[in-house]
């Protein structure tokens, strides 16, 4: 049962468009899966390898802009952004890794945060390449309907899930966790910590970049403030994983369901809607205090609390 769960859930998700959901619900579903993909990517680096990044918007943005620039400058389909972004994002990840991975703990987090901001400023000012604040508009949309976008991101989501699972259960996964738990010990056990941290960063960045390239195709418009956003991308990525469960396979998926629905819910509240970041902040504090391992990680605790209340 437990082994078949990923297949069952992806099967169920694949059948969802068949029941004729409205365009709005399809959009919500696409966002949920896109955020799961980004969350899984972040989890690989931050959750398993222990390198907490506050700058994943950098990779998301580079992926998004790869697709956008291919369309805008070369006149080819923005879908080429998906395969091409793998290479471009890897190059960026290697550069960012070279600079940031020598930093440890909070210093790494600050370094990546800075990288995200630097890339945003660059995208704003390199107007000959990026069109700056005007952004890039994809004028010919591939589909009007959302169904195919949904299937594409679903395939990306399922592939990411199995890739992360495969990696974590292999030698690589053991090495990542060993680095997270104690870098000196890992090094003296023969683990080339610099190499494996770089690998975790590249994998994580590439998956995030793919989500970014998909975003360009799906939304049809990108600008630096959207795709390199600190609060709307980098911070939300961390929240998705924190809420769902750090270093769990299902955490990012559960977290993105909660976060996307919560964001939509709060937005509908009159007057308070604009303050959704405040609510996210409060939620994060509550999660850190009561469910430090997230909904998935602390599921037994949650179940117990719920049962206890009913019994009492």
């Amino acid at each position, binding site marked *: 049962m437990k082994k078949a769960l990923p297949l069952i859930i992806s099967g169920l998700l694949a059948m969802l468009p068949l029941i004729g959901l409205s365009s709005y619900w399809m959009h919500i579903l696409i966002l949920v899966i896109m955020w799961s993909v980004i969350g899984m990517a972040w989890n690989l680096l931050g959750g398993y390898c222990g390198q907490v990044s506050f700058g994943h918007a950098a990779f998301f943005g580079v992926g998004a802009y790869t697709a956008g620039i291919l369309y805008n400058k070369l006149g080819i389909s923005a879908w080429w952004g998906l395969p091409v972004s793998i290479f471009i994002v890897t190059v960026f990840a290697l550069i960012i890794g070279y600079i940031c991975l020598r930093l440890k703990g909070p210093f790494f987090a600050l370094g990546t945060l800075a990288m995200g901001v630097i890339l945003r400023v660059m995208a704003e000012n390199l107007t000959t390449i990026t069109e700056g604040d005007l952004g890039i508009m994809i004028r010919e949309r591939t589909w009007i309907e959302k169904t195919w976008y949904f299937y594409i991101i679903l395939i990306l989501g399922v592939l990411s899930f199995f890739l992360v699972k495969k990696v974590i259960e292999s*030698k690589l996964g053991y090495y990542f966790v060993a680095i997270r*738990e104690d870098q000196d010990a890992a090094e003296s056990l023969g683990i080339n910590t610099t190499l494996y941290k770089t690998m975790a960063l590249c994998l994580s960045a590439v998956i995030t970049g793919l989500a970014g390239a998909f975003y360009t195709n799906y939304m049809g418009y990108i600008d630096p403030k959207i795709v390199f956003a600190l609060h709307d991308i980098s911070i939300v990525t961390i929240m998705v994983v924190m809420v769902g469960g750090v270093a769990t396979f299902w955490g990012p998926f559960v977290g993105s369901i909660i976060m996307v629905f919560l964001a939509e819910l709060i937005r509908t509240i009159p007057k308070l809607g604009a303050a959704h970041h405040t609510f996210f902040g409060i939620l994060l504090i509550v999660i850190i205090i009561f469910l430090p391992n997230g909904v998935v990680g602390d599921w037994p605790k949650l179940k117990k609390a719920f049962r206890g209340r009913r019994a009492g």
Partner: protein
Amino acid sequence: MAMLEVKGVSRFFGGLAALTDITFSVEKGEILGLIGPNGAGKTTMFNVVNGFYAPSRGEVYFNQKKISGLKPHQICKMGIARTFQVVKPLQRMSVLDNVIASAFLRVKSRAQAEETAWDTIKFTGLFDDRDVISKGLPLGKRKKLEIARALATQPEMILLDESFAGLNPAELDESIGIIRKIKEKGITIMIIEHHMKVIMAISDRIVVLSYGQKLAEGTPHEIGHNPLVVEAYLGEAESV
């Protein structure tokens, strides 16, 4: 032929000389004890051999190859494993997973790594604790886990940093048994220990450090009768 050669090694931290011109060697298959009062530079010596610190002066050779200046993971790959005085278990991993993680150094597949890990935890007597998350282990078992992890990298030489400190007498006897078994496997051992009776009983030779300098070198019998050592070290430590 000496397996490990430390040649004229000095290590400075700012103006402080933690090690000054240390020269000694470890023969294949022996147990070399490294002793000295607190702050003598024993752990620094390990950190130099293991690659955490590069020597400020001098060189270290392992099987005739220069290893000083290499990184710890490279040195471990060449066949030197170590344990830490302040134990460093991979806290949120089970005992077995801890050992599997180190076994991956020599093998690629998980099945092979698990096989090595099973053998190692049986060898070190951690079999019953294999599924315990290592955060929850008592100190004695953490020390054993350190040894198990080092062994799982299949080393030619193992550096044991105070693997006996804080153990009760029963655990102490068990650990001495494990060390003798490691020696029987043909693994060369260099050991730091404060426990005088233990070090005198198991070492083939002893090197004494004091204030970063080599004070003496010899068999346990010679060391026990060396007036310099008695004055600098054993005199104070007799009560232990």
